[in-house]
């Protein structure tokens, strides 16, 4: 899968795993705040975009980013360089966002979702309607499917990377993505039909 939007196009010097490990080593050895600050600044933008992409809400994404880095700060002493810092960080971020989605799905039962709002949109707002329908179709996916779908289809991560982030095997990730893609497609088609009727 190609890198479609450049989210992963981090310049080489910024994703040097060796530099990450050195910063982590300094932080673990002496609690060096500058080392942690360097890690934060290096990855804040990528984690912010990742959280925003999964949560679809800038306010929640900004909160999530802060919470993720607090988890990283508290857990960095237990980090072992068997995996890259970047992979470890992204897995924390993805799991955190997935947990938030689960909570959101539990409490959103009575909410008026964008699905119900779409027929009320003026027809001339076709671009906005299309965008809302995509978002509404995404809302219909379960947190597990939605996370996998966003990572692969929206953000362009490879299935191998998605499998790694989610802690599952390649075939399990492919299977999950296939179901997510089908569900998304069906939800989108349904919304398109409803929009045309209205």
């Amino acid at each position, binding site marked *: 899968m190609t890198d479609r939007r450049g989210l992963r196009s981090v310049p080489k010097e910024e994703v040097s795993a060796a530099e990450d490990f050195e910063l982590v080593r300094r932080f673990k050895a002496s609690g060096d705040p500058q080392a942690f600050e360097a890690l934060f600044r290096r990855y*804040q933008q990528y984690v912010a975009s990742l959280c925003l*992409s999964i949560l679809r*809400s800038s*306010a929640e994404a900004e909160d999530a980013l802060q919470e993720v880095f*607090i988890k990283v700060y508290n857990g960095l002493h237990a980090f072992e360089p068997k995996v890259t810092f970047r992979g470890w960080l992204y897995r924390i971020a993805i799991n955190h966002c997935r947990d938030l989605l689960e*909570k959101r799905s539990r*409490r959103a039962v009575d909410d008026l979702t*964008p699905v119900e709002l779409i027929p009320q949109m003026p027809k001339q707002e076709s671009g906005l309607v299309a*965008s809302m329908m995509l978002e509404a179709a995404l809302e219909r996916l379960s947190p597990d499917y939605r996370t996998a779908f966003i990572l692969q289809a929206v953000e362009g991560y490879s299935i191998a990377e998605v499998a790694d982030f989610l802690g599952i095997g390649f075939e399990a990730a492919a299977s999950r993505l296939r179901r997510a893609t089908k569900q*998304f497609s069906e939800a989108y088609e349904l919304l398109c039909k409803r929009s045309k009727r209205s």
Partner: protein
Amino acid sequence: MTDHTDILKDCALVDELLVAYSELDTERRGYIDAHLAQCERCRQELAEIERVQKLACKMHLESPVIDRYPEFLRRLSASRQLTQLQRIDEMPPEPTPQLDGGGFAAIVPLFGRRLTVRTGFQRGFELNLTRADGSSILRINAGSLTQAAAVVAGTTIVTTGLALGAAMFLMPSVKTPVPPDQPVGSVAPAVKITTRRDFTAPLVTATAGETTLAVWRHRGALYAQLVNQNEPGRRYKLSQEEEEWIRTPMFSSGVKVASDGRSYVVVGDADGSLYAWHIDPTSTDEPVSTLLAKPATHPDIVWTGKHYTAVWVTPSDSPVIETLDIDHNGRPAETTSQILAATEGKNKLSYPKILIQGSRMTLLYRTHQGSMQGAIYERDQGGIWQEQARLNHQSQSSVGQIQLFATDDGCRVVWSASSPQGEAICSSLISADGSFSEPRTLVVSRSHIVDWQSQSTATGFRVVWIEQTSAGERLFVQQFTPQLEPQTSPHAIVFQMPVALFGFNAERILLLVDEGKEQRLVPMR
């Protein structure tokens, strides 16, 4: 593992792998290609997958490029998950600042330590307690020796007894000009409020007379404690759904508390819902939570003189700010809330603050871009807030916390701001027509300001703030005239452990000093 020869026959197996088509190894891809060549249905499925993925590309969102590190430090510090960046034993020797205006220095050996007293005629005193190797244990800057001694006494309670003894020993022998108009400080005995390390920094405090209520969170649950004068009072556990809070320990955007002078109402959001608790110090009943709104984040609450008014952000794809009156017992006084401000699109509104002066309300909030916006409202006879003027304050820096104070002809806004160059606390006056006066910068710091509060006093205006530096946390106090001219030089106290502003009124500052195994309240007058 799949037998690849089966792929040729089985559409279901092919279907499972179509989404991974471009990532398959050569062998499996060969089988898939062979199957596709003879299966129209699977070719259509692959085309559908590619169509969906093309659609999905359009959903990519790009987060704005902003520096989130100051906010991270604030949250880390506020939640007190911050371990001490450096223990005292690891502290590097601090460079001695140059004191202007001449002056003198005295060095006194003290139980293997050295106490250095330096004075500059313009800048007051500096007391520096160091080890033999020059590393600093405690350093204090103060406007007068009396203040310095008071500060030493206070910090002695929370660190060691060495500095106080030394200061008392030295005081009679040091002759220095002491400005007669300088306020004289005093420190009451410290109050140990807990013996276990379960007390994170208070989220908020409110003071009614001599009683302060502090609210904080521990392992997801919400607690409140009364502190009467300097004595710890009753402790309450507010959130009953502890399990839920533990599962989402960080999923709370804020807790605020206000007082009518006799009791308190606490508002806070948990898991997207906004609750209120009424705390009456004279009652033996346990506080009961009342659901105010759902979903809701970033709450605030004020006492208007007749009732409480709460304000919060309702998160959605187009967030709005809503308000609701609350009675003395923390229950909604109205059946429905009123929307005050709304956004178009997904822009973030956060941390709304309100000030109510009679029938007029001033609302300010942070926008997604870090600027301040809001409006002035008048309440009509039907109780509806009618917008009178829009407020819009743009600046190069990003707005943090906002405070509002009433003035005779409008209100004063004080806010913290951060930019790549540093952090600052600024103030402007807002007139009734919604115009901002030229902002005055009260405080500038190249360090991170972890906590600050401001308050009107009998002689003007006072700002207290804590800076976090690699050498420890520094508490500063500075007095301003009503016109916001500096009245005194900032007085700094250096702590080698995390501190937080626990309570603050005209008479005293109540500090929470985190000593690791236990925390103490240190009242300072």
